[in-house]
C-alpha cells in the first residue's frame, strides 16, 4: 500500500514515475452554521468565508492558479446555482475554474489532482449548501434510483434508520451507544464556535426507529473554503501546512439491497489507497451525519479508542450539505496546524447510507 496515488485495486501495473509532489492545506475557513440563512444569498454566504480563507493565506483571488467548488442545484432549487455563487470569488480577470455537483471534498480532490499535474501551485476550494431552501429529507429522495426507488420517496432519515437497525441486529451497537456518540459530538462542539448544535442536546423521541432525533444531524445552512498549495509555496504561505499524504475515493453499488449496510468497504478501500493504514492516525474527522454511521466508519476504518474522533463535533453538530465533507478536511488540517494532531484522517461521504466515500491523510511537518 502506498501513500502516493496509484492505479486501482486489481490493476497490476504501477505508473512509471509516481507523482512526488507535496501538497498541503494552508488555510481553512467556514461560516457560522445556522438553521436558516434566508437573509443572504449563496454568494453572500460565501463572500466572508472566501475573504477569510484568502486572508489567512495572504493571497488575492487573482493569485490563485485553480479554483474548484462543490454544491448542488437540488438544494438551491434552481439550475446552474453555482454560476451566481462564482460572483463571490470575483472571477475577473477570468480564472481557471471547475465545479463538482457533490460535496466540496471532491472539489478538493479535483484541485489536488490539478496540483499534482504541476499546472498549478495554489488552489482555492469552496463549498456551500442552504438546506433551508427546501425540505431536505424530501429533496434527498431525488438521489435514489429514479425508476424503482425514488417514486416511493424513502427519505434520508428512514434509510439511515434502516442501516442503523441492521447494525443493531448485527450486534455492533445499541441505542445507548448511539446516544453516547451523539452526546460526545455535541459536547465537543461546544468548543467549536462555528457549530450549530452544541452542548447538552435532548436525545429526543424516535425520528425513525431506532434513530432518535438526537442521532440525526441538524438541518444547516453554511459554507466552507480551503486553500491548497504545493511544496515550498505551501511553506511560504503557512507556518505549519497540513500535508496531504494521500487521498482516494471509492463508490459502492447504489441498490441498498445488494450492499452490506453494516460495513463500508468503499471507505476502507479509499483509506488503504490513501495510505491511512501505514501508520496509526491520532485524529479522525468522519463525515457521519447519523450517529450509527460513525460506528460503521470506525469499524470499517479500524479506528480504535486511541483515535480522537470528530473533535469538531462533526456532522451531528453542523451539517451544511455539500460542505460537510470539505469541513472534515479543513478541521483535520486545522488541528495539525495548531499542533493538536500529527497525523489525521479526514473522511467525506456522498449518497444514501454512505454509498460513496473519500479519505484523505494529513500530516504536519516532521519535527
Amino acid at each position, binding site marked *: 500500500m502506498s501513500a502516493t496515488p*496509484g*492505479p486501482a485495486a486489481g490493476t497490476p501495473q504501477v505508473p512509471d514515475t509516481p507523482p512526488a509532489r507535496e501538497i498541503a492545506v494552508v488555510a481553512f475557513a467556514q461560516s457560522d452554521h445556522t438553521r436558516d440563512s434566508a437573509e443572504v444569498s449563496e454568494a453572500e454566504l460565501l463572500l466572508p468565508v472566501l475573504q477569510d480563507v484568502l486572508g489567512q493565506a495572504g493571497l488575492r483571488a487573482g493569485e490563485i*492558479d485553480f479554483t474548484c467548488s462543490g454544491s448542488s442545484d437540488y438544494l438551491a432549487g434552481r*439550475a*446552474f446555482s453555482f*454560476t*451566481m455563487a462564482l460572483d463571490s470569488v470575483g472571477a475577473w480577470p477570468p480564472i481557471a475554474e471547475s465545479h463538482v455537483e457533490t460535496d466540496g471534498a471532491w472539489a478538493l480532490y479535483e484541485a489536488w489532482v490539478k496540483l499534482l499535474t504541476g499546472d498549478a501551485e495554489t488552489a482555492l476550494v469552496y463549498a456551500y449548501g442552504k438546506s433551508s431552501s427546501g425540505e431536505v429529507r424530501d429533496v434527498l429522495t431525488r438521489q435514489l434510483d429514479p*425508476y424503482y426507488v425514488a417514486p416511493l420517496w424513502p427519505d434520508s432519515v428512514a434509510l439511515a434508520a434502516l442501516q442503523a437497525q441492521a447494525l443493531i441486529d448485527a450486534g455492533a451497537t445499541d441505542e445507548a451507544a448511539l446516544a453516547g456518540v451523539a452526546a460526545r459530538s455535541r459536547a465537543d462542539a461546544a468548543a467549536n464556535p462555528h457549530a450549530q448544535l452544541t452542548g447538552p442536546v435532548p436525545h429526543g423521541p424516535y425520528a425513525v426507529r431506532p434513530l432518535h432525533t438526537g442521532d440525526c444531524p441538524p438541518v444547516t445552512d453554511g459554507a466552507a473554503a480551503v486553500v491548497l498549495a*504545493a511544496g515550498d509555496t505551501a511553506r511560504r504561505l503557512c507556518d505549519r501546512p497540513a500535508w496531504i499524504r494521500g487521498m482516494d475515493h471509492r463508490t*459502492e453499488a447504489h441498490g441498498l439491497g445488494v450492499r452490506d449496510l453494516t460495513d463500508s468497504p468503499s471507505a476502507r478501500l479509499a483509506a488503504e489507497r490513501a495510505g491511512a493504514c501505514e501508520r496509526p492516525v491520532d485524529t479522525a474527522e468522519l463525515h457521519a451525519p447519523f450517529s450509527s454511521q460513525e460506528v460503521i466508519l470506525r469499524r470499517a476504518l479500524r479506528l480504535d479508542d486511541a483515535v480522537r474522533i470528530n473533535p469538531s463535533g462533526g456532522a451531528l453538530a453542523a451539517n451544511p450539505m455539500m460542505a460537510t465533507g470539505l469541513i472534515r478536511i479543513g478541521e483535520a488540517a486545522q488541528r495539525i496546524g495548531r499542533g493538536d494532531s500529527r497525523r489525521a484522517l479526514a473522511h467525506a461521504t456522498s449518497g444514501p447510507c454512505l454509498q460513496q466515500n473519500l479519505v484523505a491523510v494529513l500530516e504536519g511537518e516532521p519535527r
Partner: protein
Amino acid sequence: MSSAAGTTKEPVAIVGIGQTRHVAARRDVSIAGLVREAAQRALQDAELTWQDIDAVVIGKAPDFFEGVMMPELYLADALGAVGKPLLRVHTAGSVGGSTALVAADLVAARVHRTVLTLAFEKQSESNAMWGLSLPVPFQQPLLAGAGGFFAPHVRAYMRRTGAPATVGSLVAYKDRRNALKNPYAHLHEHDLTLEKVQASPMLWDPVRYSETCPSSDGACAMVLTDRAGARRAPRPAAWVHGGAMRSEPTLFAGKDFVSPQAGKDCAAAVYRQAGITDPRREIDAVEMYVPFSWYEPMWLENLGFAAPGEGWKLTESGVTELDGDLPVNPSGGVLSANPIGASGMIRFAEAALQVRGQAGEHQVPGARRALGHAYGGGSQFFSMWVVGADAPGA
C-alpha cells in the same frame, strides 16, 4: 499560471470513443441504459473491458433535466464504477469538455492509468427550455430558454461587425448538411435547402427555428490512457496537446458578451500548451459549440481564427465548409444534436476522431490537429482541448 519545475506530466492518449445515436427521445432505454451504451462502445473501440478501467469521471448539465439529484450515485453500477473512484463534474454547458479535462488530469498526474469519461443528457425526461428559465427572483421574467439569453448578443455581433443577415442561415445549412454524413447526429434533414432555413419561423430575433439546436437524448464516452496504454491500443490514438478551462462572472460592468475574455484566455492557454502560434494555419479541423448558428462567426473571432469583425467572412466565403481550408463542425455540431451535458464531450470526441482518421464520411482528409471547444452559462465557462495525431513532442 505557474508551472512546477521538474514535474513532467504523463502524455494522455484517447484510445476509445463511443456515442449513442442522438435522438429526440430514447424511450427504449433508461438513463442507465443510455450511458452504458456509449460507455460500451468506447470500450469496444479501445478493445478494453470494464476491468481495465481505473476510474470514471462523469459530467452532465443541471440535474433538473432528468429530475435525478446527483445521478452518478444511481449510475455507479451501470458505469462499472463499483469499487472505483467515480467523480461528477458540472460546469454548465461546458461540462462535457470540462469532464474530459478532469479525466485527462487523472492520467497526466499519474493518479490513474486508464480512465473512462462520459457525459450525457436525457432531455426527453423533462422540458429543457423551461429547465433553463429560472423563476423570479433569480432572473428577470423576460427570458425563455437559452435562445432568449443569447439572441441579444447575436444582434450585438451583427451591429458591431455589419455582418449580412444571411450568415446565420449559411452556418445552419452547412452544419445540417454535414450531419447527413454523421450517423450519430440527431437531425438528418435530407430535403433541407438554404431557402427553407431562411423561411423557417423566427424564434428569438434574429435566430430562426432552423438556426437553433435541437433537444436531444444522448451520451458520449471516451477512454483516456497513458503511453503504455496507447502502445497496446488496437487503433490509432489521439493525443492531448493542450487543455484548459476558464471562467468569468455571468454579469458585470464591462463584460463583452460577444467575445468574452474567458474564451480568449482559454484559447490562448491551449494554443500555448500545444505550441500553436497561428491557429488558422496549424489547426486542421474545429469542433466548436454552436447552439445558435451565429455563434460560428462569433467563436471564430473569439478563438483567434479570424480578426475581430472578420469571422463572418470566413463563413460566407466557405472556409468553414467540410471541404474548406478550416472545416468547422464536420460532425454537424450542436445544431444537429444537442444532448446538452454531452454536447461539449461530443465536440472533444469528434476532434479526436478527426485526428485518429476515424470520422468516417465526415472525415477531414489528413487532419493532424483539431480543436474541441465548449462553453456554458452566460457565455462565461469555457473548456477546450487541442488533440493531435502524434504524441506531444514527437
